[in-house]
């Protein structure tokens, strides 16, 4: 193998390493939002990058790489979910929205015991409300609000048009507001 070819191969590996380091967190969070299982999300990340390396030499537009990766991850996660549904005996991992749990113990704040109890109750309410949304709504809320993804990135990850992202988000927020309203009213009732 000539030295030029060898050098090109080394360069490609380095470029691929940079890509993995810069994008793996985002790919992981998309998979986690869809699957709600850290273990399964890790598997999706690995498979996503195996596929990415296979097609790496065909990449022409580096600016579209993230969207492309999110699309692969989204498709893999949905395939996994379909497989779970077929094996109906295997339950989902405990449904958790991990980031919401951090509301329970905010860092760097000193609260009175009463404030802490109130905050915990509200955080629990918020968590229950998000978990209670139907899946398509929950996923867009988590990707947009917690993961701070753009509409375009969400559209790529879920393989849906940007307009659908917008309408799902609107409906999801509406449902979430209704749920929270009911919870707040219940709290107010003595």
């Amino acid at each position, binding site marked *: 193998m*000539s030295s030029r070819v060898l050098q090109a191969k080394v360069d490609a590996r380095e470029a*691929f390493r940079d890509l*993995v380091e810069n994008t793996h967190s985002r790919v992981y969070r998309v998979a986690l939002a869809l699957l709600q299982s850290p273990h399964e999300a890790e598997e999706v990340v690995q498979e996503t990058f195996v596929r990415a390396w296979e097609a790496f030499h065909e990449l022409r537009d580096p600016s579209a790489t993230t969207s492309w990766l999110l699309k692969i991850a989204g498709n893999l996660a949905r395939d996994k979910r379909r497989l779970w549904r077929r094996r109906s005996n295997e339950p989902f991992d405990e449904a958790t929205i991990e980031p919401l749990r951090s509301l329970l113990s905010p860092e760097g704040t000193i609260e009175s015991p009463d404030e802490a109890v109130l905050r915990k109750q509200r955080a629990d309410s918020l968590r229950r409300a998000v978990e209670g949304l139907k899946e398509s709504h929950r996923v867009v809320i988590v990707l947009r609000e*917690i*993961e701070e993804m753009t509409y375009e990135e969400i559209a790529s990850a879920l393989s849906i048009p940007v307009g659908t992202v917008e309408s799902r988000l*609107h409906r999801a927020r509406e449902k979430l507001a209704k749920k*929270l309203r009911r919870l707040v009213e219940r709290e107010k009732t003595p």
Partner: protein
Amino acid sequence: MKCKEAKVAFSQHLDGRLGNIELERLDDHVHSCASCEEDFRIMEVSSRALRSLEPTPAPPYLAERAFRVALSSKRAARFSGQFVFVARRTAIAAALAAMGLWIGGGLTTGLRETEPRMTPVEADPVEVAIYIWTPGGILDD
């Protein structure tokens, strides 16, 4: 603006996708509709609460593992061969292109030249030897 329209607009507003005129219309509606005002307050507060959270961190080992798994997978190995093939093909194409340019450049230069060039004459080695060793030849100096 009606309640239904206002709710769509409010979601767009939360994502910064609402223009100034629409924002004014939304504002007018919210101030005149108690039900929407409360809904929007709840939506805004919950949105802010969710956004204040740190995104879920990926496990610290994940990047390195994903990189290694990708490079060592059987399918990736196949790709590696494919890559060498593509790189080799590119190198050959580049060499051919360079050669073409060199030849083309030479031809162009030849056409541009006005002065007659010395045409190489094939020398007879025996004649050359005689010329060199003949008295008065170049070796006699």
